[in-house]
């Protein structure tokens, strides 16, 4: 039998994926495990490989289609197999049948009716032509029965409201599969769409990447940009975070003179040895990981009635993309040498921009740092990235006059502003303050981390 080629499920909470590109066309030969198409989930792009060796046929979705996981997207024909071997192929490729309307019945030639029946129809306000005859002629009983059936269930299934009649179960299934109810033929009474009608998924319209249309709303013109799946996910997550988590914000300033000195020396050594440079972000990740070891309640999640204090310290680094934002994770950051952290961040952000991150690389974060220093933003507040309980917003390094000793001497020093957003349900102000004090200590006296 031909091998089904299904949309793979690569992530626990993934329900669908968008086809980005087909590398093969209908009729092409494919080898097992060879990349045949690229799809995109809410988070990452994934190469999808052929499930078997043979001829790729019956491609059912085109680029841009959003397809529920586990849906057959094509078949691979083995030796000696033909299109005819594909099970239920005809059924699956037929367009949805149109909703039956009562008008179709009314168009039939009217049956003869008895005078009593005609009078009864007039009395009951029924169109005699609509009445089905139980025998050759329409009888009074037929009219009465028909009138009764009208009373029990008005025969206007879909009035001009434009709304689709569908059961809650059908609506749920359609929603989950990303199918528009309007495209389905309802088998229930009066064309009501039922669960059984939501079977073969209908390809959704291609997902546009750019403004698709200029619409006029009253006098104002707008370009309409539909949410990408990534943008939708970001919107949902941040909305939920800011709505459900009581954020507290604490800001400290730290003198980065010694941290920058250390970085300079490290980079001189690195240059001599031909290694890559260490970024300030990497150093901050190192300090954060050290601080989290000392402050386990910042490396935690609220799960139901429990606080989970994570054993691993996995620091996410918020990374801007053209179309949104992604948070690749430096796993076990507290156990990695600084250079490895730095290389890891460079590699992750490069691949993030290319859409080539593996799922494991964006999962499991226990804390996030977001850095707008390169945009000269001195200080900002970030929204927590659930299920984590805190995020650190690092501003730009600004040269400022500061008091440096007990004689009130003033010097100009490079100062960084750090703002912690913490989940007040599980992190009290004092706990957050201790963590920030540790970060300041780590930054201003890096040797304490040794």
């Amino acid at each position: 039998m031909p091998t089904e080629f299904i949309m793979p499920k690569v992530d626990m909470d993934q329900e669908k994926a968008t086809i980005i590109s087909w590398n093969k066309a209908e009729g092409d030969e494919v080898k097992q495990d060879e990349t045949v198409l690229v799809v995109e989930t809410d988070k990452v792009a994934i190469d999808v490989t052929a499930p078997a060796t043979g001829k790729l046929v019956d491609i059912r979705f085109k680029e841009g289609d959003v397809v529920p996981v586990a849906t057959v997207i094509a078949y691979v024909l083995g030796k000696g197999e033909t299109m005819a071997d594909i099970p239920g192929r005809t059924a699956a490729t037929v367009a949805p049948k149109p909703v039956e309307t009562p008008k179709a019945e009314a168009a039939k030639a009217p049956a003869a009716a008895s005078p009593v029946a005609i009078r009864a129809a007039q009395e009951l306000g029924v169109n005699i032509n609509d009445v089905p005859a139980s025998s050759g002629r329409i009888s009074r009983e037929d009219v009465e029965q028909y009138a009764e059936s009208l009373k029990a269930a008005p025969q206007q299934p879909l009035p001009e409201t434009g709304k689709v009649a569908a059961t809650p179960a059908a609506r749920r299934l359609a929603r989950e599969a990303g199918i528009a109810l309007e495209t389905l033929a309802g088998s229930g009474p009066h064309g009501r769409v039922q669960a059984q009608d939501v079977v073969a998924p209908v390809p959704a319209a291609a997902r546009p990447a750019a403004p698709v249309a200029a619409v006029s709303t009253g006098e104002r013109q707008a370009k309409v940009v539909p949410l990408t799946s990534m943008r939708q996910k970001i919107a949902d997550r941040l909305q939920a975070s800011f709505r459900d988590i009581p954020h507290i914000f604490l800001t400290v300033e730290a003198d980065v003179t010694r941290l920058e000195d250390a970085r300079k020396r490290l980079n001189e050594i690195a240059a001599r040895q031909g290694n890559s440079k260490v970024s300030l972000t990497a150093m901050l990740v190192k300090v954060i990981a050290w601080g989290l070891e000392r402050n386990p309640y910042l490396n935690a999640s609220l799960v139901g009635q429990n606080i989970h204090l994570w054993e691993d310290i996995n620091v996410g680094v918020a990374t801007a993309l053209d179309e949104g934002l992604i948070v690749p994770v430096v796993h076990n950051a507290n156990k990695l040498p600084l250079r490895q952290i730095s290389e890891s961040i460079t590699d992750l952000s490069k691949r993030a921009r290319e859409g080539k991150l593996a799922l494991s690389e964006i999962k499991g974060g226990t804390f996030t740092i977001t850095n707008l220093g390169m945009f000269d933003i001195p200080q900002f507040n970030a929204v927590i990235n659930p299920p984590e309980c805190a995020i650190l917003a690092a501003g730009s390094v600004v040269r400022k006059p500061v008091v440096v000793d007990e004689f009130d001497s003033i010097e100009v020093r490079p100062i960084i502003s750090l703002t912690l957003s913490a989940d007040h349900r599980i992190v009290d102000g004092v706990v957050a303050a201790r963590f920030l004090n540790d970060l300041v200590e780590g930054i201003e006296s890096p040797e304490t981390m040794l």
Partner: protein
Amino acid sequence: MPEITYLEAIRQAMWQEMKRDDRVFLIGEDIGRYGGAFGVSHGMLDEFGPERIIETPISEPSIVGAAVGAAVVDMRPIVEIMFMDFTLLTLDQIANQAGKMHYMFGGKATVPMVIRMPGGSGTGAAAQHSQSLETLLMHMPGLKVAVPSTPYDAKGLLLSAIRDPNPVCFVEHKLLYKTKGEVPEEQYTIPFGVADIKRQGKDLTIVSSGIMVHKSLAVVNRLAEEGIDVEVVDVRTLKPLDNDTIINSVTKTGKLLVVHEAVETAGWAGEIMAVVSGSRAFDYLDAPMRRLTGKNVPIPYNRQLERAAVPQEEDIEREVRAILKGEY
């Protein structure tokens, strides 16, 4: 396991608990020498004597009032109201006194009493002796309501009711008194708020109680021969109501029919539907929820009309088929 009747199961529960706990006593009309209007307490006067089988004048408010008083001083009264209809006379004692004391005294008072009441039609006893008033009792805070359908459930629920620290209305169906079932000789309790799935099925859920469970099962077992697979959930207690079992069942089947003998308007079928439509089961509903109930009329004396006034097997069958065919 011995097979006894629903009536004997109730008597056995009371008898055994009166042997075990001398605070338990029975109070009501004609419950002594006559053995109660339906014979439930037959023989108990000889066994326990007139101090614990207390016969009263015909005054329901006094009976329940006396029981409330006894209960708050740590006795365990079981009231027998001859017909559920007469409960209406006692609503002040039941709802305003028994049901509220525990709350009004900040939990310091408890009112451990059971009010047994035979309800339902089918005996030709007409409008004032045939009602199903359980919805009324459910509606009032502080009361629990049990509606057993089998001898086994009757014994286990009655024992829980007697031991409950606060008032329980125990609704017995007259037509069930003579039905038989296996009942363990020893004492056992069935917790309140735990429904019983009397038959597993996947096509449709019937939620029901009392005699309607039996009528539903008879229909469903016939339909099973045609491959129609209906689940029958017996609520056993209407309050507390086992929402989870109902929600899980409807989530599985996607279709709901509530069958009760009480009249339709503001009947408890509406409560069940509200529970379902407000739950995750909503997203699994694949047909309109329906109820099959008593007609909105006083129960007629005429036997044919009496029959027509409450759901019969043929009505249940018609309704199940209609829902499954998508006629609504």
